């Protein structure tokens, strides 16, 4: 059996700290990604499409997103589309999972306990739904395929041991949590990888972590496009071939064309805005999509770092965000501190103050600029 699995598309989610233009850009890209999943499923002749949650964001989902999902999945008919709601698209009475007139090939797992979906004579997909944005218990806790199969399956079905069982849900594998390097991530529906085999599942397709994970017991497809700068965005749709013995082979396919770059430029030694502009232009050459450039390094005292220059260098990019990082000003503060002048006293006082380092840097640069008669007193 061939499955196409994806997760964490987060349709309608804003791009973290992005403006309206970036929201629209990312929305369009993610919608294209959804269509890309459908095209992939068709092209690889998938037996089913699986989504492991966070397909959209409940609090932001727009009516046309619901219609897009309905139409896209309907066009896949009769290929089954199995949807396991996550913490961002949790299942409830007001969820578009519940209020959309899905085509008959779409099956939404709506219970908080894993339930079976007989995909074929030999393959059963066990799925569950988050029913709230938080507080979902571990879906594998106290779960046993054999026990649940006995309870849910009809009498004519085969015995559980004769079938291949695949899990599909949204949850946090505890040992993978530290690998994700996302400080904003919270454990939802936690589980341990050993619970998968112990429960009788041959494999699990899981959502929540945005970095893709190709573990022996489970697969995190990862998010097809980053939700914020800093995410690798190496996820996509996974083509999973399930063997008769429950073994899986996986192949990731990129489905989102939106490029997101998180870059850094050191402007140390660059004396003027033109040199910085040149450096940024060189850095961004050949890049498309969305880019964030963090400016670091030592800023020459005479330089007025203007972050508004991005329009001049954003050629070829859909969106460019400039920010300052670990900037230091090119003042010889040690030397200035030795001066028996107001300037020396000022720098000494600021450095001895309880202001944080960045605030100290801005105050010192502002004061020194004012003392040298400059009007560009806003320090980046």
């Amino acid at each position, binding site marked *: 059996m061939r499955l196409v699995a994806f997760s964490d598309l987060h349709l309608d989610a804003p791009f973290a700290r992005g403006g309206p233009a970036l929201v629209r850009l990312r929305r369009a890209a993610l919608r294209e990604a959804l269509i890309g999943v459908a095209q992939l499923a068709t092209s690889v002749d998938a037996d089913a499409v699986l989504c492991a949650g966070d397909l959209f*964001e409940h609090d*932001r989902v727009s009516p046309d997103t619901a219609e897009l999902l309905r139409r896209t999945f309907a066009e896949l008919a009769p290929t089954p589309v199995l949807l396991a709601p996550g913490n961002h698209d949790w299942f409830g009475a007001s969820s578009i999972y519940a209020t959309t007139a899905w085509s008959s090939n779409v099956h939404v797992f709506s219970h908080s306990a894993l339930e079976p979906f007989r995909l074929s004579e030999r393959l059963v997909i066990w799925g569950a739904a988050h029913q709230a944005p938080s507080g979902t218990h571990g879906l594998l806790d106290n779960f046993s395929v054999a026990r649940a199969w006995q309870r849910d399956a009809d009498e004519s079905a085969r015995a559980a041991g004769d079938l291949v069982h695949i899990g599909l849900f949204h949850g946090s594998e505890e040992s993978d949590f530290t690998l994700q390097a996302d400080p904003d991530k919270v454990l939802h529906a936690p589980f341990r990888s050993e619970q998968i085999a112990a429960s009788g599942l041959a494999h699990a397709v899981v959502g929540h972590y945005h970095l893709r994970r190709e573990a022996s017991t489970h697969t995190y497809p990862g998010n097809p496009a980053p939700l914020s700068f800093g995410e690798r965005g190496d996820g996509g749709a996974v083509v999973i071939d399930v063997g008769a013995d429950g073994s899986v082979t996986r192949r990731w396919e990129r489905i989102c064309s939106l490029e997101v770059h998180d870059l850094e430029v050191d402007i140390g030694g660059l004396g003027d805005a*033109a040199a910085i502009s040149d450096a940024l232009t060189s850095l961004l050459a050949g890049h498309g999509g969305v880019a964030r450039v963090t400016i670091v390094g030592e800023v020459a005292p005479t330089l007025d770092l203007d972050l508004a220059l991005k329009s001049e260098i954003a050629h070829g990019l859909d969106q460019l965000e400039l920010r300052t990082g670990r900037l230091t000003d090119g003042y010889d503060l040690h030397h200035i501190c030795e001066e028996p002048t107001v300037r020396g006293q000022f720098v000494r*006082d600021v450095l001895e103050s309880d202001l944080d380092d960045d605030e100290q840097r801005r105050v010192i640069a502002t004061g020194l600029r004012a*003392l040298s008669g400059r009007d560009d007193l806003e320090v980046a």
Partner: protein
Amino acid sequence: MWIRKVVAGAFGALRDRELELAPGLTVVHGENESAKSTWHAALTVGLCGRRRGAGRSSADADFEARHRPWDLEETWSVGVELQLDDGRRIEIDRDLHRQRSQVVDIGLGGRPVADDLMRDGSPDASVWVGLDRASFSSTAGVRQAEILSVNDEPGALMDFLGRAAASAGGSESAASAMERVVRFRKENVGSDRVNAVKPLRIAMNNVAAAQAELGDARRVHADYLAAAAQAEQYRGHLSQLEQRLAAIRLAQSALEVDVAQVRFDRLSEWAERCPDNEPVAPLSTDLAPLLAAHAQMKALRAPAALDTRPIDVIEGELLAVPVLPEGPMLVDSETEASVACWHSESAQLSAWRSNQPAPAVDGPAPGDVRVLADRIQQFVERPTADLELELAHLATERVDALSAATDRTRLRVTGAVVSVSGLAAVALAFAAGLGAAFAVLGVILLVLGALLVRRPAGHSSVLMRNVERAEAIEVEIESRRVHNAAVEASRIQCFEQLKTWGLSSEPATAVAMAEDQAAATERAKRWHRELADRAEALEQASTLAHALLDQYTDRSGNPAVRLNNAHSRCEELRVVEQASRASVGLEAELARSREYAAAHERFDADRNAAIDQLLAVAAQFGLSGSIHEVVSRIPALLAQREVEQADHDRRRTDWVRLQERLGGLTLDEHRRRLDVLANEHRLAVDACADNPVRLDFAHDVAAVDEAAAATEDRLRRAREAAATAQGRLDQLRVTCPDVAIAEAVLLQAESGLERVELLHSTLDHTERFLERAQEQAHRMLAPQLESEVTRWMAPVTGGRYDRARVDPETLQMRLRESTGRWRDASLVSHGTAEQVHLVLRVVLAKILTRPHEQCPLILDDPTVHADARRKIEMLEFLREVSRETQVIVFSQEAQVIEWAAERLDPVIDRSISLIDGPDTEADPVDESGAIPLPGSVA
């Protein structure tokens, strides 16, 4: 630290030149254009270097334009050799073109030592003394223009002091810097008051608006989700009701099949009892035509008999009645009046004819005769006797006038002669000198002659008028004679005319005769006109009378005769009319007799027709014979037919009932319908196989029908509710705002506010720290300045000022005069201000220099504008200073050169001519680089 040597490899116009400097005071002198400023710049850049990096300021560009060798493309170099206070000798070589510098410790075999000197990409040796290239330039490098500036601006001294205190000679004092911060904050942050318009308020407003927008968006989005859930709930409810209704319909279907089966069974039973077709009534059953014909015959009635005579008798009597002739039976009054009028007009005409006047006479019109009479009487002759008498008198006067004219001619000749004589006498008196008396005589004669010549000509004019009058009288006399002849001729002509008319020659009589003739003529004409009028009136009356009489008689005779005839005729007609009135009664009687006869004839015809009709109808029912026989057999026939009809009615009732139960269908059609219902029910059962609804009253028809009605009502209401919910959902789908966009907008607004608030915080901190630093630095600098300036003030001012005082808050400096009076340093004379500025520069260089370090002072023509006395005082001051720190003075002044020649210590000082080279022996410094103490030189 002091500078031992500066080497200009290629700097400005300098090529491979060097200056050996003294550790004390070095005076470098030369004329204008001798490269003093170039050496000054070479010294500074050799010591401090230039900022290295991308981009360059305008100052950098200006420096390069001034000092880069114009004739060398890739060569621009300068170097210095320094002697540090710790004994090290440092050599700095700067390749300004390639922006590379090499700093080596000569004592250590040329080991690089530049690491801790790097400032903005190149080594800055001023760092060793605690300065940098900016502060060195502002304090230790004293340019001529800076000293001059204190003369141009009273506050320049204090301004310099403030700037020096703030940043070792930067461009701003601490106060100015704080003002700049405040001003920047006012423009770029502003207040957070509600009505403020600066960035902080704008950013706060943006956040508030974005928050409100997001709140609205989330609320509407939640409404949308709730509406979707509600719509789904209604759909679920609707689905349940539809399932229930489907179950009820299924039950109804089952019941309907049962009912249909029962009905079909009954119909089958009925059909077996009833004929296949509708029973036909017997032909004789309908006796209505027979009864109708009988009734019609019996209804006929004969007309009532009348008491009248036979028609022929009445018609005979009518033929004997005379016929009434036509025409009027009385003469009307109008005809009578017209004949009377004719009589009257005839009598009047006869009377008029009897009064005929005399016949008319033809004669002239009285007016014409009157004209002739007036003309005759108006002819008057004009007499000529008076004129002839006057003419004779005029002839006498003419003779007298002719005599007087001869006398006047004579006098004029005499006057002329006298005048000529006088003129001659005067001429002679003057020409011949005959004397005055002769001349006077001449003049008198001359005047007298002139008077004679000028005497008036009165008699001549009288004569002329006399002649003219006589001529006029003669013309008048002739005119009157012609007039009188014409009058006479006319009068004769008038009398001739009167005679022609036969009238009297006497004008009045002739007029009277003419008037009589005219009156007679008028009377005759009037009588004839009246006669014609009366004849016409008679004719009209005759015509009218005849016309009216035409209706009575023929036209024979005059109107009077005809009137008599008319009266006779009318009398005859009245008699005949009386006789013809008897025919009216006979005619009425005749009409009644004829009407009765016609009615009786119609009755006979109707009766015969009714009998024929009855017989014909009766024949249809098998009755024959005479009319009486037929009528007698009708009751029996009626009784027989009633029995047959009752049997037919019973059979037809059964048939009708069957048809009613069949409802317009045949029994086969009922069978097929039953089959259809049963089949549909089977399909419905299949369709409802998954329907979970089960009815426990499925066999109760009433309960099922009641449940169907109730469920349909609930379903209708549920559909309405679902449609309403769906409508609201559809509307919300259209209007549902984009929450993600609203969040992004808020994020942007918050980011903007965060930026402004961060700027606000930074500026607040900056201002606070600047204020505190200013206070502390001034408090620290003030006593040092006060002490150092006081130390040097008396020597440099020649004792005019001996003490300084510095306000620790404002750094305002006051100087004490030798008289003990304190003066504001900004208000001292120009020359003193220059001296004070020089002292301040030296003092500040010392204060700002790192403790125990000596900073070289480089001064460009510092005394150029000072008078001779102050010049010496300033040079002496510098000489004293040079005993503690190296001083290099560039100058072009002869007095300075002379002073240097006299006052410089050849051991530690040096005077260098840029034209001739060193004036004093070089290298007074030992190899260790130690500077001799000032005291030791003396």
